[in-house]
């Protein structure tokens, strides 16, 4: 075979190496039974690390159970303060993960890896805490016994008769940097036990007595030794692979285990794990969901979820297939993935159907061809979900009434139409009745109908009449046929109905997803996308929804919450922060903080995580079923993709705008530099002429030059004023201070400001006397009027008209001239920045005046427009909305104690 390692394999190793380099190193002190001295050994090694290697070592948690020598060792080490959790009124001291993460030691000691944390901790299990510490790059020393190894759990239960509920996934052990076996011969251990050196709690006393039998201890020791040896073996293999020694690489075994909602499946899963461990093979846990499996009872679906979670924990890939033919589906998948071995359970009970078609096992074996099939028997797990003994489905009274009615009608018809001589026809009538009942009602009602019909038939038509005795035995066959027909028809109907129902359910799910994608397609902007998606999720899962996304400062913030969303916001935020950084789900029904009422799902898009979705269902068991969870995942995926898409679109838009701003800036620069230089050039020229040749100039020329300087500096001043105004308006530093003002006053102020330049022009002002007061900023609107008037001054020679009109809710002001007007089609563009109506030899300016007007009017919520007047000239108008209450004024002059006096004139 190939001399060099497979490139895929090399890549995998590089990725693993990289991950491992960042991760802390995990050393497990591994023993066969309690009391072999794991904790002691761990503390000793840790202390020597600290003293010799000068490493920063802290004790995360160590249960010394009051034993003297271990306690003494701890004395020299720093302890992470424990956290007190109030659980059902009892204070429990638990390991404080956050404190440990904040302390960031080089090495932390974590006793009892298999420990179950008190409810309310972040993770249900201590090994999960350890994983997080390792992920944070902290080295960990931990201890555990062989009976806590997940895949050995059932074997040990069989040997010792003690079921261990606290287990650690094999993957944790596999990823460990080192497994230190702490070995103590059983005799020595028993002696230690007798000497009271092994801590045994009072309630565990009885179990422990059984546990510490010599036979048990020998078996456990063997298991521990073997497990450690297997690991060495695996390391050897890894070494050989890494150095290209493995010539016969690519055994490429793939294992598939068929999982069902049965409690026996757990054993199968463990068997698959062990086999995959031995073969170093990838393995799949496959569940085939039949369309009719919709009717899975609550306990069955919980058991199924538990089985699949177990498989996931043990490192298997969980796959759910869908199809009516489980054998076909399993084999199809197996061939697709090159599965070489299939593990199935031995059927516990033989079902009637299996008699005819063969059981799943039979069919698998028959059709598997080159794939090996392993059949394993199983015991139900001790911690299996108890089968539900809940209330039986309620008796459907209308169905049974229908059965009675059908039977009565059949009997009546039989008697009236056919009589007792035409028995075959009567039987047909009865069969018709039974058929009608079974096609519409449940199995029970059909059988009931069959029973009633048989009874009525026997009573009324079969001699001897009006007794249930049967003279002719042939009639018994008739009865049997009637029952059979009822059973078959109702069975068929049931199946069709359940298939239809599951198809409906499926369609509903697909439709919900389709609805979501359709609505998302119509949503623009991330905010809207989140709202739309969240509203859909709310509806489909009848849950309260919260969406967390990163805010500007990098921290996570709640971007969306259902209207009636409540609950501890602080806690939600910290959980979602955890989900965000770990990209793993948390909360309700997951491995992390399973006790909470909310399920947190990471929103993973193609470019990574984009947010966290929090679902608080109305019923806590809402996401118990695999189907539901998959539905949630599907929604989350859709939502994440839409959010990513929206974000990308926003980013593109932002870049586009930036480019536009850049273009604008450059056009501003060129425009401004031209317009600033022209008056400056004139001023410089005129002033230098005055300085250099003042003597030779006559009085009139001198005056002409100085007047030019004055005019040009005024122009420069206007230009700079406009530039500054525009900058301020665009920077948003201008605050609109609206106060109730009179148009007359602002017109007067503008006229006053332009007095010098307007004195030679005919300005006609017409303001109706009943003009209401309007809320606006006097300074800003004065600026608008000044700019409009200056514009009229610049572009026309004739009279200028200023008019105001009012309609309810709005006041309009217009400034009109008799100039050449606006070129066609430029009416809207004149308000754009740096736009100037192009005219040969026309007046120059930066083209900001009208843009400023537009910005100011827009800030007031008004409109601005330009149009050509009939009969020539341009007219610029703007409107200001009248919003809010005019302040009530007391003008009776009662203020300051002055007596009211009627106003004259």
């Amino acid at each position, binding site marked *: 075979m190939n001399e060099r390692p497979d490139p895929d394999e090399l890549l995998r190793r590089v990725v693993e190496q990289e991950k491992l380099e960042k991760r802390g190193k995990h050393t497990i002190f591994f023993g066969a039974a309690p009391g072999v001295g794991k904790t002691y050994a761990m503390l000793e090694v840790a202390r020597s690390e600290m003293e010799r290697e000068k490493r920063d070592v802290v004790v995360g948690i160590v249960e010394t159970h009051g034993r003297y020598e271990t306690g003494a060792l701890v004395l020299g080490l720093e302890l992470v303060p424990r956290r007190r959790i109030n659980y059902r009124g009892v204070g429990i001291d638990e390991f404080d993960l956050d404190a440990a993460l904040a302390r960031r030691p080089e090495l932390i000691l974590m006793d009892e890896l298999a420990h179950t944390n008190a409810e309310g901790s972040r993770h249900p299990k201590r090994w999960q805490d350890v994983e997080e510490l390792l992920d944070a790059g902290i080295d960990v020393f931990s201890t555990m016994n062989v009976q806590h190894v997940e895949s050995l759990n059932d074997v040990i239960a069989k040997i010792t008769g003690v079921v261990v509920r606290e287990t650690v996934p094999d993957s944790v052990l596999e990823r460990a940097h080192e497994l230190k076996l702490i070995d103590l011969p059983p005799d020595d251990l028993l002696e230690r036990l007798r000497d009271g050196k092994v801590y045994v709690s009072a309630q565990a006393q009885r179990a422990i007595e059984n546990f510490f039998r010599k036979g048990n201890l020998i078996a456990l020791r063997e298991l521990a030794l073997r497990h450690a040896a297997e690991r060495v073996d695996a390391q050897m293999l890894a070494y050989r692979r890494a150095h290209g020694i493995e010539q016969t690489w690519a055994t490429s075994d793939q294992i598939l285990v068929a999982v069902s909602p049965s409690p026996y499946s757990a054993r199968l899963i463990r068997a698959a794990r062990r086999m995959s461990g031995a073969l170093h093979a990838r393995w799949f846990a496959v569940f085939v969901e039949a369309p009719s499996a919709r009717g899975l009872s609550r306990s069955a679906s919980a058991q199924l979820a538990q089985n699949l979670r177990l498989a996931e924990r043990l490192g298997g890939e969980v796959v759910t297939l869908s199809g009516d033919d489980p054998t076909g589906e399993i084999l199809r998948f197996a061939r697709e993935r090159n599965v070489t071995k299939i593990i199935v359970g031995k059927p516990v009970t033989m079902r009637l159907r299996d008699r005819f078609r063969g059981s799943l096992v039979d069919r698998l074996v028959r059709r598997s061809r080159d794939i090996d099939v392993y059949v394993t028997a199983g015991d139900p797990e001790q911690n299996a979900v108890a089968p539900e003994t809940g209330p039986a489905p309620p008796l459907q009274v209308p169905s049974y009434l229908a059965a009675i009615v059908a039977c009565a009608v059949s009997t009546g018809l039989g008697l009236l139409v056919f009589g007792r001589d035409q028995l075959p026809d009567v039987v047909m009538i009865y069969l018709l009745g039974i058929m009608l009942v079974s096609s519409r009602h449940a199995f029970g009602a059909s059988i009931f109908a069959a029973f009633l019909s048989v009874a009525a038939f026997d009573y009324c038509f079969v001699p001897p009449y009006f007794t249930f005795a049967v003279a002719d035995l042939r009639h018994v066959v008739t009865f049997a046929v009637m029952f059979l027909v009822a059973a078959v028809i109702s069975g068929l109907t049931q199946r069709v109905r359940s298939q239809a129902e599951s198809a409906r359910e499926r369609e509903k799910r697909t439709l919900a997803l389709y609805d979501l994608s359709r609505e998302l397609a119509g949503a623009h902007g991330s905010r809207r996308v989140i709202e739309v998606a969240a509203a859909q999720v709310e509806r489909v899962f009848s849950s309260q929804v919260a969406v967390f996304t990163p805010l500007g400062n990098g921290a996570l913030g709640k971007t969306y919450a259902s209207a009636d969303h409540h609950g501890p916001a602080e806690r939600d935020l910290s959980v979602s922060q955890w989900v965000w950084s770990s990209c793993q789900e948390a909360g309700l029904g997951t491995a992390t903080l399973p006790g909470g009422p909310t399920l947190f799902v990471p929103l993973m898009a193609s470019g990574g995580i984009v947010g966290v979705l929090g679902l608080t269902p109305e019923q806590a068991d809402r996401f118990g079923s695999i189907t539901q969870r998959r539905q949630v995942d599907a929604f989350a995926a859709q939502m994440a993709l839409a959010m990513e898409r929206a974000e990308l679109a926003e980013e593109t838009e932002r870049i586009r705008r930036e480019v536009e701003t850049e273009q604008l800036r450059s056009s501003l620069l060129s425009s401004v530099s031209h317009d600033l230089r022209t008056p400056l050039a004139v001023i410089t020229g005129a002033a230098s002429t005055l300085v250099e040749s003042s003597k030779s100039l006559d009085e009139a020329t001198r005056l002409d030059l100085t007047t030019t300087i*004055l005019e040009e*500096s005024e122009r420069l*001043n206007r230009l700079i*004023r406009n530039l*500054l*105004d525009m900058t*301020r308006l665009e920077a948003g530093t201008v605050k609109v201070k609206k*106060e*109730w*003002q*009179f148009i*007359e*006053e*602002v*017109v*007067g*102020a503008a*006229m*006053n400001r332009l007095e010098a330049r307007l004195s030679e022009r005919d*300005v006609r*002002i017409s*303001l109706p006397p009943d003009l209401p*007061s309007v809320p606006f900023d*006097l*300074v800003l609107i*004065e600026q608008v009027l000044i700019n409009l008037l200056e514009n009229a001054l610049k572009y026309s020679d004739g009279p200028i008209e200023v008019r105001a009109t009012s309609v309810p809710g709005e006041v309009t002001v217009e400034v009109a001239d008799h100039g050449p007007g606006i070129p066609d089609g430029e009416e809207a563009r004149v308000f754009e920045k740096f736009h100037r109506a192009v005219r040969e030899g026309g007046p120059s300016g930066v083209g900001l005046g009208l843009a400023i007007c537009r910005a100011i009017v827009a800030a007031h919520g008004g409109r601005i427009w330009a149009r050509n007047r009939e009969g020539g000239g341009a007219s610029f108008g703007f409107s200001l909305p009248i919003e809010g209450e005019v*302040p009530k*004024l007391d*003008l009776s*002059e009662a*203020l*300051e104690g*002055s*007596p009211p*006096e009627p*106003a*004259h*004139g």
Partner: protein
Amino acid sequence: MAEQSPLILVVEDEAQMRRFLRVALKNDGYRLVESETAKDALEQAAARSPDLVLLDLGLPDQDGLTVTERLREWSAAPIIVISARGREEDKIKALDAGADDYVTKPFGVGELLARIRVALRHTASSATGDSVFVIGDLKVDLGRRLVLVRDKEIHLTPIAYKLLTVLIKHAGRVVTHRQLLREVWGPNSSDHTQYLRVYMGQLRHKLEENPSRPAYLVTEPGVGYRIRTQE
């Protein structure tokens, strides 16, 4: 005033501005003291007791507002503030702190000299107690409480009359909304600007020939009002 021309303290940090002011003011017959910083300005003011202070609000060491306040602690000399456009808040603060008037940069020399004249005349008139105010067609006899337009008597409500007299008291100078409200309506009514606008409108309609192009009663947007004087 024959004995000696008025002394003006110019507080301005820009050398070119000082140069222009020096030429303009000396040409009009005023004597000058110059100062570049707020600290120096206060010392000069104490040492030379100027008749008028021309104060730029943007100084390098302290803002002009503080200088105004410190000066007003002991001096009654009129203060004219020079400020940039768009800083209406600064103007109001300075006026409320005791400045008498303001000019906005850039300004023509005519405007500045007019303001200076008004300010100086005011110091003189408050001493003489002039009782008749005349501008254009408007004549107000403060002693007899008579308001005449083209010699026709105009009836004003007590508040409108009071408002007019306050403006006349500060004739030629800007009066901030707050000052007006305080002097007309009393100390607790400084948020009744709406009344002010209504009465100003009333006054204009009764006294001005064209109220939307007022010749006497001028609005200083964002700051206050001013009644012009006969030049």
